[in-house]
């Protein structure tokens, strides 16, 4: 039996929907052009809030019956999975679909569907006999990954990974690990979020004093800025096809990047407050596993969500690992689209991958006055930055209950 434990893992297909783009091309254009995807949005019980809203064509890969039965996160996952498989040039019908795995990170699942049902029975004087029989299949935690398997006829393993806002990276890590364990030959993995469809997430952030407000929605998400006042919740998804390098080469696949390092750890300190020391430890572990030093990283895609303490903690962690090296480009995708929760880490990583070709680090927008407590000199503020070198990207994703994840991707070279 062959061992793939040390096999190189590459990204061969990308599908995504973000509030400012429904393909990598559109998304990248928006990131380079400084185009936000945050808009005013009506949510149940709370009225108008600000959110990152996606406008992908739900019926591109699903029938209306399938959409009605399933969930928003299922539709997001199906759209992204189809687009990733197509981008990879793969025909699943020609493959052994029992050797395909689906691994999707989620921050939460089931809140949307539960709130919808409670609203529905409230119209019937809380008669529970009108509670939908679709509730359980919609709310089981594997739902979005399971919907992908149903839609694409994939009979290999499928899982969602509940990892709060570290989930997008967790999906990629799981995919890479399953390929190395020879559980699958193709991993369809990443992260998804339908969170804007539950009022609860907005209300909870508001109660926590962490929900962003701004008269101009496009200016509301402002990580590292002195005037930041919280999170803009977004929906979205990003899914990649991962393959072992020899398999990808054998079929002449286009390789978007190679996952060379990853790590996850836990703060074990607080339900919501981050721990800079553990974040730094997580970055160092990923660097060690990649066999590189902090000086090798060219772009650091930050997690910062525009909360007061979260941004300061991450900056402290970055400073601790990377010092003040000027050639490091630190950027932030949430400033454009808000916080896409389970999809955030996945979207933030793939939106940076085109830098391997164009050597440009997209910016962090809405950074008018850098918070001195953040104090990172390497932040790419408001305008993209041309780089002398774009060899390694490090992607941070952190979440509640103190969950940290880091993925490092290297530009692929045929002889590298």
């Amino acid at each position, binding site marked *: 039996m062959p061992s793939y434990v040390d096999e190189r893992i590459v990204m061969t297909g990308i599908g995504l929907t973000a509030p400012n783009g429904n393909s990598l091309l559109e998304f990248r254009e928006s990131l380079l052009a400084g185009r936000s995807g945050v808009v005013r949005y009506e949510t149940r019980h709370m009225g108008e809030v600000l959110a990152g809203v996606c406008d992908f064509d739900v019926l591109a890969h699903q*029938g*209306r*019956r399938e959409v*009605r*039965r399933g969930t928003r996160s299922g539709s997001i996952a199906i759209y992204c999975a189809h687009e990733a498989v197509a981008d990879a040039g793969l025909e699943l019908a020609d493959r052994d679909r029992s050797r395909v795995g689906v691994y999707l990170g989620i921050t939460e699942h089931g809140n949307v569907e539960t709130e919808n049902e409670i609203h529905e029975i409230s119209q*019937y004087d809380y008669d529970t*006999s*009108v509670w*939908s*029989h*679709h509730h359980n*299949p919609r709310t089981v935690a594997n739902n979005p990954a399971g919907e992908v398997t149903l839609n694409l006829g994939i009979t290999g393993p499928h899982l969602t990974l509940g990892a709060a806002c570290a989930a997008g990276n967790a999906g990629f890590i799981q995919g890479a690990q399953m390929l190395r364990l020879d559980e699958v030959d193709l991993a369809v993995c990443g992260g998804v979020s339908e969170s804007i469809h539950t009022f609860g997430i907005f209300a909870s952030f508001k109660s926590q004093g962490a929900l962003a407000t701004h008269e101009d929605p496009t200016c509301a998400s402002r990580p590292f800025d002195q005037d930041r006042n919280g999170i803009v919740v977004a929906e979205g998804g990003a899914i990649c096809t991962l393959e072992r390098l020899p398999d990808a080469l054998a079929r002449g696949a286009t390789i978007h990047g190679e996952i060379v390092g990853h790590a996850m750890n836990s703060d074990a300190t607080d339900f919501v407050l981050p721990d800079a020391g553990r974040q730094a430890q997580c970055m160092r572990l990923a660097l060690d596993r990649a066999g590189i030093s902090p000086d090798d990283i060219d772009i650091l895609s930050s997690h910062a969500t525009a909360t007061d303490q979260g941004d300061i903690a991450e900056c402290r962690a970055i400073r601790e690992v990377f010092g003040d090296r000027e050639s490091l480009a630190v950027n932030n995708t949430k400033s454009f689209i808000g916080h896409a929760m389970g999809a955030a880490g996945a979207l933030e990583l793939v939106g940076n991958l085109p830098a391997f070709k164009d050597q440009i680090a997209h910016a962090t927008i809405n950074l008018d006055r850098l918070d001195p407590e953040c104090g990172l000199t390497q932040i790419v503020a408001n305008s993209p930055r041309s780089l002398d070198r774009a060899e390694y990207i490090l992607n941070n994703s952190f979440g509640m209950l103190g969950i940290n994840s880091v993925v490092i991707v290297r530009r692929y070279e045929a002889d590298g």
Partner: protein
Amino acid sequence: MVADEIRRVILDILSRIQPDEDLSGLVDAVPFREQLELDSMDFLDIVMELRKQYRVQIPEEDYEHLASMSGTISYLEPLLKDVQSPV
């Protein structure tokens, strides 16, 4: 409601459950499942919609009467005779 009105109500429910299906050729005497891609969850949607719209509680042992359009109409006629047609 009379038979024709009940038929329209059921067609309306089916069109929401099966939005991509053409229901114009539906044969009343033939079981739904032989004409439509209708599984048990879809069937429960019919029961649920009748419960929501007309407060008709259909016990599980009576589900067999709802296999076809004509069976459904026969079963519902006495239960909905005093209910105003929505159309």
